[in-house]
């Protein structure tokens, strides 16, 4: 089935998440969809799968304009979405999960469902026990179940949102084979991913979104550079940089490993000097976020040692990290950073280092007024944080970090800020690093930002970190290749071959 997006616009408050997207995907095609977090991929896919409705524009299936009011409406039109976290019912059995989606009749037809399950399984070489409880299955098996369910419901367009995170290599092979088979049958597959190699292996064509707009449609033969420049863009020239500090080591990681349900990270060896700024680059979910949370004390290492100023911290609680003057700024502002319903004044009161029993609201308001001016937050002391725009919430988060610190961990510190504010924020951060000796580790999907403000850069790929690269001796292009999973030696060889005359930065 051919899927056509025409001029899709979607705004969330002040955020323009989809800016007039036009894209046609022919039937039988496996279409890759790439872009950094916040680029608008999920929004576009949610519009197609009926989770949200677009503000403007239309969707055409086989040339026919359709309205998709809900996920149930989407599956009626033949559109099914496989979510990154399977939307299944873990306490129920496999067969019940299948039946839940069934549309007809009061009494579910178990026999027919079982037959369909077996048929689809044989077709794709899956083997699920229909009586197994879903919470005993692996992520890969749950994904197979979802796929079976969608096919059983008659999906002719399948959306897969980063389906390979958290599944094993053989399961991935099986999944890809199934997808190729489905495409050959004329079904349309939209494959959302961060991993270029998967695009190379699987997709017939790829589209790249950046900042809500479709910036490139790419067909084979694929070149990594094309993708990287489309996804990250590098237009802003880098101003002169400062030399790295030559201070004593502050943070020491020795053979540290950490993991979550999807990914094992490490082992990582890293020594960070006081006042040093380390940029962590990589496709989202490559392990840099886990490392940052590990250094913040929000995750415990599964192995290795962490020391701050010579003090071992690998068994410390988050509050011990805080007392050691380590602070973390999350990317997800309203989930992890700010408390909706509380005002700016209340946030600054909570953030006060020393306090008595009663709140001195006069003083807290005074602090709020000062910080609002200092970080040019557009809001009032009594404004509830959720009423602020994203950029102003970001400034608030940064303003909450103003106590003296040894180590500062930042997830996307300037996301949502305009260039001028970003430059200002970084000026402040660099001052803290150089003057107070605060070491900074930060994640950013903006490679220019990473290069410009880091002393050294760690590039993550599938849970492995590169050796720390001095930012002076690398380039956006080199980082781009490393992010795409090209080994360092190959990168060096390629870049030198192609750009022999470029002066090292």
């Amino acid at each position: 089935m051919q899927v056509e997006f025409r001029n899709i616009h979607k705004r969330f408050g002040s955020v323009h998440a989809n800016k007039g997207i036009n894209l046609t995907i022919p039937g039988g095609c496996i279409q890759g969809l790439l872009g950094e977090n916040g680029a608008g991929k999920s929004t576009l896919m949610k519009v197609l799968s009926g989770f949200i409705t677009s503000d403007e524009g239309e969707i055409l299936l086989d040339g026919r304009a359709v309205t998709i009011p809900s996920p149930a409406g989407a599956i009626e039109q033949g559109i099914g979405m496989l979510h990154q976290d399977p939307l299944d019912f873990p306490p129920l059995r496999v067969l019940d999960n299948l039946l839940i989606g069934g549309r007809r009749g009061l009494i579910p037809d178990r026999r027919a469902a079982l037959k369909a399950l077996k048929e689809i399984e044989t077709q794709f070489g899956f083997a699920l026990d229909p009586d197994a409880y879903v919470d005993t299955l692996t992520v890969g098996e749950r994904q197979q179940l979802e796929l079976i369910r969608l096919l059983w419901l008659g999906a002719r367009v399948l959306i897969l949102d980063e389906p390979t995170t958290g599944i094993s290599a053989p399961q991935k092979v099986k999944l890809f084979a199934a997808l190729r088979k489905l495409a050959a049958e004329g079904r349309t597959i939209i494959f959302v991913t961060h991993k270029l190699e998967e695009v190379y292996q699987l997709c017939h064509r790829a589209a790249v979104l950046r900042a809500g707009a479709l910036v490139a449609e790419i067909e084979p033969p694929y070149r990594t550079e094309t993708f990287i420049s489309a996804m990250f863009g590098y237009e802003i020239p880098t101003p002169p940089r400062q030399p790295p500090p030559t201070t004593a080591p502050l943070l020491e990681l020795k053979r540290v490993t950490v993991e979550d349900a999807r990914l094992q990270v490490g082992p990582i060896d890293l020594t960070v000097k006081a006042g040093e700024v380390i940029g962590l680059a990589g496709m989202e979910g490559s392990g840099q976020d886990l490392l940052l949370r590990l250094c913040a004390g929000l995750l415990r290492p599964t192995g290795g040692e962490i020391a701050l100023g010579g003090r071992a911290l690998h068994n410390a609680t988050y509050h011990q990290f805080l007392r050691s003057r380590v602070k973390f700024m999350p990317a997800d502002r309203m989930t992890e950073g700010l408390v909706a319903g509380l005002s700016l004044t209340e946030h600054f009161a909570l953030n006060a280092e020393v306090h008595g029993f009663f709140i001195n609201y006069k003083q807290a308001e005074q602090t709020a007024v000062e910080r609002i001016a200092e970080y040019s937050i557009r809001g009032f002391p009594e404004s509830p944080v959720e009423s602020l725009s994203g950029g102003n919430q970001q400034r608030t988060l940064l303003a909450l970090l103003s106590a003296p610190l040894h180590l500062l961990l930042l997830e996307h510190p300037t996301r949502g800020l305009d260039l001028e504010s970003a430059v200002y924020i970084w000026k402040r951060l660099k001052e803290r690093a150089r003057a107070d000796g605060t070491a900074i580790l930060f994640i950013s999907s903006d490679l220019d930002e990473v290069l410009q403000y880091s002393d050294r850069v760690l590039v993550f790929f599938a849970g492995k970190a590169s050796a720390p690269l001095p930012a002076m001796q690398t380039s956006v292009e080199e980082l781009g290749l490393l992010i795409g999973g090209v080994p360092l030696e190959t990168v060096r060889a390629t870049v030198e071959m192609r750009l022999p005359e470029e002066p090292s930065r």
Partner: protein
Amino acid sequence: MLKNARVVGLGARLIGIGLALAFVALILLATGAPPFQAISLLITGAFGSTRKIVDVIATAVPLLLATSGLLITFAAGLWNIGIEGQITLGAIFTVGALRLFVDSGAPPGVAILVGMVAGMIGGGLWAALAGLLKIYGGVNEIFSGLGLNFVATSATIWLIFGPWRRPGVGSMSGTEPLPPEFALPQLPDMRISAWAVVLSLLGVALVYILLRGTYIGLKLKATGRNARASFVLGIPTSRYTLVAFVLCGLLAGLAGAVQVTAVYNRLIPSISSGYGFLGLLVAMLINYQVIWAIPVALFYAALIVGSIQLPIQLRLDSSLAGVLQGALVLFVLIIDGVRQRLRERG
């Protein structure tokens, strides 16, 4: 603009109250009872004489204590359904402590004071149990609360039939009454204790100050609104969850102690009299704003007292008060929901 929003909010609440009254009137019509007569009976039943007004105030005392405790747990984002059990345990601890003073020759004032404190400890411990189950066992406080309520009720029954049985009598009605001097002194010719009233007002005032002006209150609110962000900001959220439970338990326990020392003077099977659940309704109806607790608790108490006349005069069951109390919360919440819907769309 803020003021405007407040007026609209009040208006919405009044609409909700109007709808609830209309709903109850419909039910009365359906049962063939005259709605206006019923409502006027409710009013005269509650405010018809000084004695009745005093009864209303006395009824509001435990309700206010329960409500103020619940305002703390609601602020921390907790559904402390276990408050009934906490009131009950407060009553049990109070009776237990007072029994120790029987024939001891200690001044009654000391006995009462110890009894009250014991009641608060009892309620606090019972609430702490729900808190610990939540923090360390991952048990939702609604489930543990329900369970602990049953345990508390069973404990009263066991005490009434077992260790604290009235000598020579096998009665469900309660334990042997405590010596009358162990009751809170009442005002002359009135069934009300000024001490109890002062205690309940003190409870409301303390909760108001706690939530408005202290760091504990602010941290409780932050934990309730976004526990994850609060944790990342450095608030020990588990500790504050426990603090909220214990503070609520202390007030609930005090409500139980008041039930013993100001009303029943012994342990009876349903000593909590449903004031805990009613407190939940009041807290929801006032949208968790402490200052409204007193008038609304008085209003609910008036419904309880006023409905006593219904069976006698109209042969209606006195549970009509409960219907009205429930309908009020339901309709006010519905109106709130509708408003939110409209705001999201607009």
